[in-house]
């Protein structure tokens, strides 16, 4: 939407802009310091281990969502794609794994299958969104319902990974010092996404489309292609998130991804990516995902009374976003 921008608001001193920018990361610092003061063992080895491995699934999914939000679109189906990948993973490990021999092999096949499903789900959503011009919010909402059904149809009841197959999923418990292997893998994935986002023409296209889709199209950007790729990647991220959850929980559940649907978006937004597209990136998402994890983790540390928990959580989220919201670029309309 075109605005007569106020020139006055645009020529402010640069130092302030930078301060505002870095201030946005202070939410997580304030939270960590606050929780540590309240409970010194918040930064103890045991909890660091927890914090630095449990956030991996959220981080991976949020990375995928970042790419979609950069377009100015949204993918609400990620949670249920995650569920389907989750039940698919455990089904393959349990049913196919024993025939394949070593548990690791079953796990690899399951990973491939889950990722392939994620890609197909993303492709379908991308196709419906791009070709039929259904807004991504509502298209992904439709697919959310659809994949929920599919997850139930694969296995209605939660299923544990059979004990004999635990060899294929025990990697989730591996830690290097306090850093879990799962987080290392997640960060590696983020690094790949970062390269993708900032060093390839696909990444440049994402930002251009998010900023002004029409202009990007006229400039010769492959808009449809970039959008579909972004949705495919978000689908794959959701599926890998589901795979990680299977390893983490040693089980599958057809509803496991549902609570993630909005939490992922919130993580990305907390990381400074604009919900209207064009600004932000996956590095911010790392901060955002950890902010969410720290809030959830810290809540259990300061022993908030049970009936107050969700109130306190809501206010923490509000405070974190109030601190971290990107006000450096002024004159933009906030929706």
């Amino acid at each position: 939407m075109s605005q007569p921008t106020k020139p006055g608001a645009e020529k402010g001193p640069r130092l302030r802009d930078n301060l505002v920018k870095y201030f946005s990361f202070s939410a997580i610092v304030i939270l960590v310091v606050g929780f540590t003061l309240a409970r010194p063992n918040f930064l103890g080895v045991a909890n660091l281990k927890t914090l630095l491995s449990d956030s991996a699934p959220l981080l991976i999914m949020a990375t995928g969502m970042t790419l979609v939000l950069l377009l100015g679109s949204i993918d609400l189906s990620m949670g249920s794609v995650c569920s389907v990948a989750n039940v698919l993973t455990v089904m393959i490990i349990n049913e196919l794994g024993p025939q394949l021999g070593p548990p690791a092999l079953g796990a690899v096949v399951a990973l491939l299958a889950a990722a392939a499903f994620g890609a197909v789900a993303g492709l379908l959503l991308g196709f419906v969104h791009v070709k039929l011009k259904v807004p991504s919010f509502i298209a992904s909402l439709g697919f959310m319902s659809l994949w929920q059904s599919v997850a139930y149809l694969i296995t209605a009841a939660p299923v544990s990974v059979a004990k004999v197959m635990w060899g294929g999923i025990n990697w989730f418990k591996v830690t290097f010092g306090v850093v879990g292997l799962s987080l290392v893998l997640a960060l590696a994935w983020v690094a790949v996404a970062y390269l993708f986002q900032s060093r390839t023409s696909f990444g440049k296209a994402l930002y251009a489309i998010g900023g002004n889709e029409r202009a990007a199209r006229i400039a010769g950007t492959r808009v449809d292609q970039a959008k579909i790729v972004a949705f495919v990647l978000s689908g794959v991220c959701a599926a890998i998130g589901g795979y990680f959850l299977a390893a983490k929980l040693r089980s599958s559940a057809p509803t496991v991804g549902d609570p993630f649907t909005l939490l992922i978006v919130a993580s990305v937004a907390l990381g400074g990516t604009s919900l209207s597209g064009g600004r932000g990136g996956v590095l911010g998402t790392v901060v955002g995902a950890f902010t969410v994890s720290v809030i959830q983790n810290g809540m259990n540390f300061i022993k908030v009374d049970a009936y107050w928990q969700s109130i306190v959580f809501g206010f923490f989220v509000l405070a974190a976003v109030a601190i971290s919201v990107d006000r450096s670029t002024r004159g933009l309309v906030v929706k």
Partner: protein
Amino acid sequence: MAAKQPTPMTIAEEFAAKVRRDGQRERVMRYAPMIVLLALVLIFTAARGAAFASFTNMVAILNQLAIPLLVALGLTFVIMIGGIDLSINGTVGMAAALVGVLVMNNRFPLNLGFLGVLLAVLGSVLVGLAVGLIHVYLKIPSFMVSFAFMYVCKGLGLLSYAGQPPKIIDPLLVALPKTYWLGIPFITWVAVAVLLVCIFIQEYTAFGRYIYAVGTDETILRAVGVSVNRVKVMVFTLAGLCFGIAGVLYGIRLGQGDVTAGNDLMFPAQAAVVVGGTSLSGGKGGVTNTIVGVLIMTVLANGLLLVGVNSYIKTGIEGLIILTAVALTVAHGAKVVSK
């Protein structure tokens, strides 16, 4: 030219034909939600006959329509200004919990009667106001503010009775869900009244014009000296009011204060608003569209239940219908930008 056309069309004729075609397509798009609704009704009538088309079932649909309609009405205005409100589950739940606590009930001595009902609604209104103020003045996207308030409100609702839900024993409120007028339940009448108020606001007040304008281009309002911020805050407050009324009615319908009343209302409401034809980017659509959207969602849920579709695939079918309905209502073509 070898094959001679009898009369090659001139550009003007082509243009006229194109305008006609566009007009037809637009009409199809405009009426697509109604066509979908009609199709659903026909399918379910064919499948279940009397069970679906019976008077009792119509009343049941009207009864079930009331609360989703109220919620969707509030959401419609928010979506029209290009915002979004995720707090629904919380605000509705909170109002449903508070009404149980504040009126004559079996757990708490408070017996505020009608005042209690008002206070319960007021709680949600205040939350809507808070969402609006924080969104506007701290410049936080409405998505995030309402996301946070979903938790806050859920918590407040839970806290209000802490444990066993209070059973409403106020005789008037107990009687309300069983009260019918012209064969239509009281709760539905309330929803209809709110609907009329919303139509009035949209069509006959300056505020209604401003809602369209904010969704189209905020700078225009600034140019004529209308406070965009005030319009936005009012929209969120109005939404809070709708959610509050929905929550209170839900509590009364359930006969107890129950914070879970709001669960799973949010996404269907979003779907209903969009399926009805209100554009997510703002400025387009309106209350009347929402009525059709809510009808589609309600009839669909009711019909699938009567047909006895396996619950596992029910949500999937709902998803497909949403996709189909929206695909019919949106503009197509290479130049169309959809987010």
